[in-house]
């Protein structure tokens, strides 16, 4: 499936859209981390929570649960929240 990557994480992927697979959102993120070591911890904390200023959308719907089932043709979008200054 396609995963859209925010600009803050381009230093890992080098591309704003990458391919990853997995049966759940958590597995997709694990696969991303195998391809791009370190990227998962920048998005997901050690308590397996999506970090405060990161949002993940699956087919346009906000997702917080890493056990959410994912289908091969789903679209995963990772967004950095509009915050800071």
């Amino acid at each position, binding site marked *: 499936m396609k995963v859209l990557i925010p600009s803050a994480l381009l230093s890992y992927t080098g591309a704003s859209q990458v391919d990853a697979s997995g049966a759940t959102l958590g597995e997709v993120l694990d696969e991303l981390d195998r391809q791009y070591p370190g990227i998962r911890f*920048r*998005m997901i904390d*050690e308590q397996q929570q999506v*970090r405060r*200023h990161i949002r993940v959308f699956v087919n346009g719907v906000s997702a917080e649960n890493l056990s959410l089932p994912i289908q091969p043709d789903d679209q995963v979008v990772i967004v*950095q929240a509009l915050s*800071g200054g």
Partner: protein
Amino acid sequence: MTTVALMVSTRKGAWIFQTDSNRAAWKVNGPHFLGHIINHLVLDPRDRTTLLAAASTGHLGPTIFRSTNWGQTWEEAAKPPAFAQAPEGQNGRSVKHTFWLTPAHGNEPDVWYAGTSPQGLFRSADGGRTWAAFSSINDDLKYREWMGSEKDGTPDGPKLHSIIVDPRNPKHLYFGMSGGGVHESLDGGETWRVLISGMDVVEGFGFDATNPMFHDPHCIRLCPSNPDRLYQQNHCGIYRLDRPSDTWVRIGKNMPSEVGDIGFTMTLHPRDDNTAWVFPMDGTQVWPRTSPGGKPAVYATHDGGATWQRRDAGMPKEQAWWTVKRQAMCSDSHDPVGLYFGTTSGELWMSRDEGQYWECIAQHLPEIYAVEAIVL
């Protein structure tokens, strides 16, 4: 010819300033990690090559970067500091940022310690590539109580800081927590003891001074020339501790009353254990935490805190509402000693004569979090 390097960490990246032994002209190397929050950039004094940077951003989780070529390239830690995952149904903590980095003893190359926000103590044995919880304090119920909650710490989170290794003994360690007091281990972190005797707590609220929870050490320093002497800038004053005594003495009582002894940072002379410098902050009413009266100054003691002298030559005389954070003042090892500090308004200042005269060496940087000096 020797050079001096200053590692400057800011809210928006890191810079390295370098000069020769005259400390006259500075070359700047940076920005590194522009836009990232860099809480601490430290060059390993054991190999004078390895740089570690404690990094996060406004959006992303915290990590550690490592460079061995002065920042030309950086390698991210494969396993940054992180708390243990809590059992199902329980709330665990997550590291918001690594705040403090300390290279370990000279006999332990590649070993580093890290302090985090919220308070956590971590260790790396491979030069910062992987990190693991160090000792049991991160999950110790008693320590967790002393650490308090997000409400009990500094505005951007409670912190573990001032990790100190006794140069005579790698198993003799100290650290401070804001809040949570000062702690010492004599067995390499197997066990810890509280070291808060003599330290004051905020008056008027009935706080129990024997409870580490109510203590807020801001910056603890061990004298390079006398490892039995420590100094401390605390939320409630300036202190000195001469071991084997366990009781801190509030030497800040000897500061001018109109200035007070509140502040964040402190730095020590490399060869004279009676000489220290502080940067006082306004701790009245709502705690502005700016230079008292808008007149910034360093205060020096040359007699272990019995007397203090104002050192402000070269600084603005009025309307300068500076804040200098706990990691943002340091000294080099030249003779005379060079002193350096960075302000939250992005100015980097130095004195090449132990504080007699000050000059600004950089302006317009982002909010400065930390300044570290090393003579190469």
